[in-house]
């Protein structure tokens, strides 16, 4: 069975969008100097809350909104613990993931098996009818375009605005930012909430568009891959997007290959996204790379203002 490159490319974009959303949110969080390892937990909460609300109301838009709120609420727990209670960020992030996985299956208990309302494709007039490019680029759900717009917005805000500069400064040296009078904790909390909302949207994209259904643990490590993408993209939005599409390409391709019955063991194909992520991480972290330079200097460090 041959693999149609056009549907493959379109599938690539669909497969990439959830991790792109989660990764761009985490990029902002890490730029502010906070390492939130709870992306997986926030995604799965987003997946279940988006799904539940969409099923209840019949409105995918409300579903996505609920997903963003759900992700942000979970992130708020992380924010309060790490920013006010000065807890260890690694441990708290892990706790967030474990808690999120448990809570999501609890919420999802009653709705598994339901069918979510279909999310309409937004065919861009004129463009979507184009051969090849039309179906690949211009015939997706609104969330796909939103994710691209979000990446551009994050890039522009970080690079050109004062808000972006302050955010980077806080992530670079929180003591200096504090000495200059910036509200380190408040800024970080906002970033953490933004990251949670993005992860929630990413999760909802799984349960409402890509699958679309609710199953326990359905994000299957996508949150961890999003974390890896931030490193892969060396904290730059454009490169994170590139990484997400590369990863999405691998995922889409291996699914097609599985379906096509190629003589590669199915398990190996299923492992491939994770293995390739590991290989990419190794490449990015080896060598005295620029990547290390781009990492926010205060990443993961606890801030406690004395005085």
């Amino acid at each position, binding site marked *: 069975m041959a693999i149609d490159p056009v549907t493959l490319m379109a599938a690539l974009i669909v497969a990439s969008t959830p991790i792109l959303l989660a990764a761009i949110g985490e990029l902002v969080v890490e730029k502010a100097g906070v390492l939130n390892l709870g992306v997986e937990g926030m995604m799965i909460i987003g997946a279940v809350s988006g799904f539940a609300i969409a099923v209840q109301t019949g409105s995918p838009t409300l579903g996505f909104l609920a997903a963003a709120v759900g992700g942000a609420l979970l992130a708020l727990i992380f924010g309060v613990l790490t920013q006010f209670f000065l807890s260890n960020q690694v441990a708290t992030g892990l706790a967030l993931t474990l808690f999120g996985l448990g809570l999501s299956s609890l919420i999802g208990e009653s709705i598994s098996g339901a069918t979510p309302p279909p999310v309409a494709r937004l065919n861009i007039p004129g463009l979507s009818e184009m051969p090849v490019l039309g179906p690949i680029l211009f015939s997706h759900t609104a969330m796909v375009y939103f994710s691209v717009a979000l990446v551009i917005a994050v890039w522009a805000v970080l690079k050109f605005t004062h808000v972006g*500069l302050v955010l980077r400064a806080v992530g*670079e040296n929180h003591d200096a*930012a504090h000495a200059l009078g*910036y509200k380190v904790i408040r800024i970080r909390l906002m970033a953490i909430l933004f990251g949670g909302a993005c992860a929630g949207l990413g999760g909802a994209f799984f349960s409402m568009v890509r699958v679309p259904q609710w199953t326990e643990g359905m994000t299957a490590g996508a949150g961890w891959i999003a974390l890896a993408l931030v490193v892969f993209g060396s904290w730059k939005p454009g490169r994170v997007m590139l990484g997400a599409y590369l990863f999405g390409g691998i995922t889409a391709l291996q699914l097609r290959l599985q379906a096509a019955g190629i003589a590669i063991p199915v398990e190996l194909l299923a492992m491939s996204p994770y293995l390739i992520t590991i290989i990419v991480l190794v490449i990015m972290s080896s060598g005295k790379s620029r990547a290390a330079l781009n990492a*926010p*200097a205060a990443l993961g460090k606890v801030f406690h203002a004395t005085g």
Partner: protein
Amino acid sequence: MSDTALLSINSLTKAYPGVVANDSVAFKIQPGEVHALLGENGAGKSTLVKMIYGLVRPDSGSMDFMGAPYAPTEPRAARSTGVAMVFQHFSLFEALNVAENIALGMENPPKPRDLAARITEVSEAYGLPLDPDRLVGDLSAGERQRVEIIRCLLQDPKLLIMDEPTSVLTPQEVEILFHTLRKLSAEGTAILYISHKLEEIRTLCDEATVLRLGKVVGTCDPKTTSAAEMAELMVGKSLATPARTDASHGEVIFKVSGLSVEPANPFGTPLRHIGIELRAGEVLGIGGVAGNGQDELLAALSGETPTAPGAVTLMKEPIGHTGPNERRQMGILCGPEERLGHAAAPDMSLVENALLTARHRKSLDRNGFLDWKATRKYAEDVIETYDVRTPGPDNAARSLSGGNLQKFVIGREIMQDPKVLVVNQPTWGVDASAAADIRQAILNLAQQGAGVIVISQDLDELLEVADNFTALNEGRLSNTRPTNGLTMETIGLMLGGAHDMHDAAEAAHV
């Protein structure tokens, strides 16, 4: 009571648990005045300026700025009133460029292009050249300070606070800075100048307020008061200068030659062709402005950074490839600059910290099993011998004051009877009496025949303890010269990187 004062401080009090940092502090600063705030480490200077800059709120008392009540709740409020501050540490962002760093310290930063133009303009006007597009991480300590100063100047402050500004500068750079400050003062900007360096204050300042243990203990006119009088006000007693006897030095015991090391992190300094010869009984002083490779040099000497075997030798034996513990066994002991986190583990007890370096020479383990009893005994010995003030050896290292912890760290090394001792900034942030004790201990050790290398940014300290002097500049060492007869001018040139002393001497005569 004159109403012309720019800032009047009226009995400000601020207490922290266990310590009253400021106790009814009061004084006035006049427009255009260069006002010195003088005091030892821990006298309460930084708490006071934090209150003026809105980072800390006083428990009681008030301030008036230009006759109006002034109670800033955050630095932004202070800045908009006309108060700017140049920090000693912690206010620059290495991964951001000069213009971004400056924008972060401004209320309403102009557009990037206009800001860059303004930076160039102001920096030239005050003789402090700066490139707005360079990364701060790549700048020298002196250039970084310029970034801070320009950041303040762009806001046209009425009062400029400078916290220990010269500790990172060469004598020549100090001259340039003073020139800038005098120009500002002539233009009507008042300057609150915080320092413990008396000679500087005598050259620069119009008025001095002296703090001790949180209280104002006196004011004086530094132009007419002698340094000794001010020192006594500051410390509260007269201090003995360390006693030393000129002894003849023995054989070269420790030698470094052609030592080059690449930095481990992107903003580190590479070491280039370092050569050192240390004789038994000698104290060698290595001066240099911060960030010129001091940490890297100590790491190469301690064995934390291994090098080519022949680059470091002890008694002609190549040891460059050995690690810290092997060197300790051979008798090379070190005291790094950073007390908390490098020389000692902050959250560990003094007993555990005694084990950190003394395991081999004090035989504190058997086949890896630790002898806690002997370790405790050793910690207690160090505490007693070096008069370390602490409730007991079970207290965490971070609970000690800087001076006491430094005495513990230096004592821990010296009591292991080293053949060679290397210390970096042995008295940084330490109160005067502890500093004197530490210097005396270093001299005593040399007296007993050990070789000592003292790396320090405090030139007075080096002139006090060192027999020979060399300077570290951008990872290179100058030629070594006897300390006796060195002038500040020559030292300045050595620090500034004039490696050929012949040229330097000529330049000095121009």
